[in-house]
């Protein structure tokens, strides 16, 4: 079992479905990165493609409440069905964003691969900087720790009824639907087990 601390400058985890583009409004975020996002992050760290991180379990949460929250204005392409609207129309949208996010992730399974990844000994064929969320959600630190410490308002993602988030991400436009599950954010307890 290995426990990681992950720090990122920002975090936006788009709630899938009809976008806010029609109203020029707010693109909502999940209250925490969904399990599918964490899985994708671990796969990217280890140089794996999507869905390759098998026989591994993880649990995770915030070590502390994100340091800030705000809205970032970006232009997004307007899509209809499976293609962008003719003329490449883009509209301004506000992305609900967390700032200063600090995660803990405990992984049970192929921890040797994660150790190798932390040492830079895995080949990342897709490569690129590491991010957790969108590409602007740059990860600045990922390192191993012995135990999780609550740094102020930490939480653990557990099965519950508070929020429905994707367990397995979808691919959109009818290619593959996301597998959604219900979760809650429980107060962080020291040394959580998988």
């Amino acid at each position, binding site marked *: 079992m290995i426990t990681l*601390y*992950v*720090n990122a*400058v*920002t975090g936006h985890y788009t709630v899938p479905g009809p976008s806010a583009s029609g109203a020029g409004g707010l693109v909502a975020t999940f209250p925490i990165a969904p399990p599918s996002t964490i899985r994708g992050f671990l796969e*990217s*760290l280890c140089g794996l493609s999507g869905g390759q991180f098998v026989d591994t379990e993880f649990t995770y949460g915030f070590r502390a409440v994100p*340091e*800030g*929250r*705000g*809205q*970032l*204005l*970006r*232009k997004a*392409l307007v*899509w209809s069905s*499976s*293609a*962008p609207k003719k*003329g*490449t129309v883009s509209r*301004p949208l*506000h992305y609900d*964003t967390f*700032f*200063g996010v600090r995660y803990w992730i405990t992984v049970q399974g192929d921890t040797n691969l994660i150790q190798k*990844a*932390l*040492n*830079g*000994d895995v080949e*990342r064929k*897709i*490569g*690129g*900087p*590491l*991010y957790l969320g969108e*590409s*602007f*959600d*740059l*990860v*600045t*630190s*990922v*390192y191993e720790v012995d135990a999780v410490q609550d740094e102020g308002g930490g939480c653990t993602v557990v099965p519950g009824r508070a929020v429905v988030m994707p367990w397995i991400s979808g*691919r959109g*436009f009818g*290619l593959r639907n996301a597998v959604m599950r219900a979760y809650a954010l429980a107060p962080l307890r020291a040394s959580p087990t998988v």
Partner: protein
Amino acid sequence: MYLTVLIVSNPTLAANNRGEGQGNIQTLQRMTTPTGSRTVLNGVSIKRAMRDAMIANGARMWRVNDNSDPKGNPAGYAYGDNASPSIAGASPATPDGYADDQFGFMKAEKDKGDQAVKRKGAFEVSAAISTTNDDGDLAFMQGLKAAEPQLNPFSAERHYTRYQYTATWDLSQVDTESFTLAAEALRCLAVGGAHSSSASEITPDQVLWTLHRAPGRAGLQVGMGDIFPPDEPVDLSGIKQRAEEIGVSYNGITLGVRGQAIQSMIAAALPFCKQG
């Protein structure tokens, strides 16, 4: 090999407006924290400023912005050597070999199996966050309506502060020339807002950079407790120490000042770039 750089800027007047107006007040983009409000420069705006600087320095770009499009494309951008108004009609079809290939690419169409329609960028930049709380300063301005000879008063939020932001390159995926052009652009960025008078000049005051073999292992991050007022010298030694405490030591962490740090960073990173 990865290169991560943390930059704390010289004091600047933030004018990255178009967050959302309140009445006739142009507002800054901001985030709320338990101890106050910080203004933010969007990572998209920083990338746009880098593009503008790279074009000004003679970079060969696949996507040109509206201010440099020879056809005056009303959509704002032109793609490829044929200056197509849409990605679909661009020739060549992808930015391979162009200086902006490092920013990533996506052709917005339905995934066609193995056909590559998107590629991750070799370079990413975070949002820039002010190092002090926003005091709510307002500038009183007047706008001229083109159709009628009258002045319309409005106000615009301003924030005199420093900004800090982080950027990372995957050096194995960017060639030496493109990397140099992008890194040199960090010397001076005109991060724009909604109006020509709204460009915030972001120039580095203090630069922390590190080379690291594993992604996400830079450890360079500024927290809300790291406050750097515009009228006081910046001391990043605490951030450097925190990074070293979590084991970031490969090639060390270099603390530098202004252009000298950018120069030394480029020189150290070039051997790890994609050669040929």
